[in-house]
């Protein structure tokens, strides 16, 4: 194993650069170092001007999404040795405006997320604050996979539909809506339907499936979207055929 590896970083400093450019850095190649450790080494030892987001270093916070050698990855769980002898190219996540270096603007996702009400909606008008809302393990299995989302937005970075149509509500928001729709304690499915079943909701998805490939938490947003398409289509047929009371 070579002792060092070259990391090529996509740089953009709006106050001094008119165009983005690549900077190369030589960093130690260690078995336990992820791309994020390489970037931290650059920031601490080589070039303190490098900007990027990170926090937990263990695939939970969802802050350190980047494009590593062309693929959307969490830089904390993508290891440098897998790219030896290098170079490793690190770019900001695709499909988002870049603020600086590897930092992207995430306002679009933050604005879309609450539109699908990703929280438990109570069916009771006056919920009993002391009541327990029990759930069996089987009921939890219905939504557990979708609850693993860490909002890292790698699925948006991977999605070719979002690249073409920024109005698309997107994979993570729909998967999170399904996380609550499929929860036995939730009564908000009808509230979420207007957004999910719109042209910019599930129907914008053409099932490319790259979101599920990119997802570092195995959430399978593409599967969530396909499941909701069937739910929405069934409801649309019922709306068309059945009188209001029988739906």
């Amino acid at each position: 194993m070579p002792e060092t590896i070259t990391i090529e970083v996509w740089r953009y400093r709006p106050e001094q650069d008119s165009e983005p450019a690549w900077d190369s850095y030589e960093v130690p190649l260690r078995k336990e170092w992820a791309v994020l450790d390489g970037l931290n080494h650059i920031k601490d030892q080589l070039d303190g001007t490098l900007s990027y987001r990170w926090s937990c270093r263990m695939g939970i916070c969802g802050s350190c999404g980047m494009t590593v050698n062309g693929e959307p990855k969490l830089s904390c769980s993508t290891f440098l040795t897998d790219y030896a002898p290098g170079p490793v190219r690190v770019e900001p996540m695709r499909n988002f405006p870049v603020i600086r270096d590897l930092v992207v603007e995430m306002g679009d996702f933050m604005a879309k997320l609450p539109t699908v009400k990703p929280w438990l909606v109570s069916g009771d008008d006056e919920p009993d604050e002391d009541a327990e809302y029990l759930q069996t393990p089987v009921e939890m299995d219905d939504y557990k996979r979708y609850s693993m989302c860490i909002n890292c937005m790698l699925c948006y970075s991977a999605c070719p539909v979002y690249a073409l149509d920024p109005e698309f509500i997107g994979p993570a928001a729909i998967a999170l809506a399904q996380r609550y729709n499929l929860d036995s304690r939730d009564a908000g499915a009808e509230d979420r339907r207007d957004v999910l079943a719109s042209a910019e909701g599930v129907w914008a998805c053409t099932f490319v499936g790259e979101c599920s490939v990119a997802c570092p938490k195995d959430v399978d947003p593409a599967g969530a979207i396909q499941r909701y398409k069937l739910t929405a289509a069934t409801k649309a047929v019922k709306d068309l055929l059945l009188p209001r009371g029988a739906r």
Partner: protein
Amino acid sequence: MTTKRSPEPFAWLLFSAGGMVAALLVPVLLLLFGIAFPLGLLSAPDHAYLASVVSHPITLLVLFGLCVLALLHWAHRFRYTLYDGLQLKKYGVPITICCYGGAIVGSVVAAVVLLRAL
């Protein structure tokens, strides 16, 4: 962001049905009539027998259903190929008319061909 209900679920249901029906039936038909019979791997049924099978109302209905749903599957897929693959979404209305119109024309042709077998 619009929250208007979209007519898309109906197009998608027909697309899904067409994909499934075509995936189940077309490979079998191609294997039999495109490979097995021409190569003599299976003895081909004679013309009179095939004609009587095809002219049965249930066969007609199945073949017609296969043609219509497969064409609607094509229309939906080709529409999105034009939208996203060639990035022509701004011509959405004429593309939709051409794709689903084409599927309807194809269905009429299929009906005419099948009814002539009667």
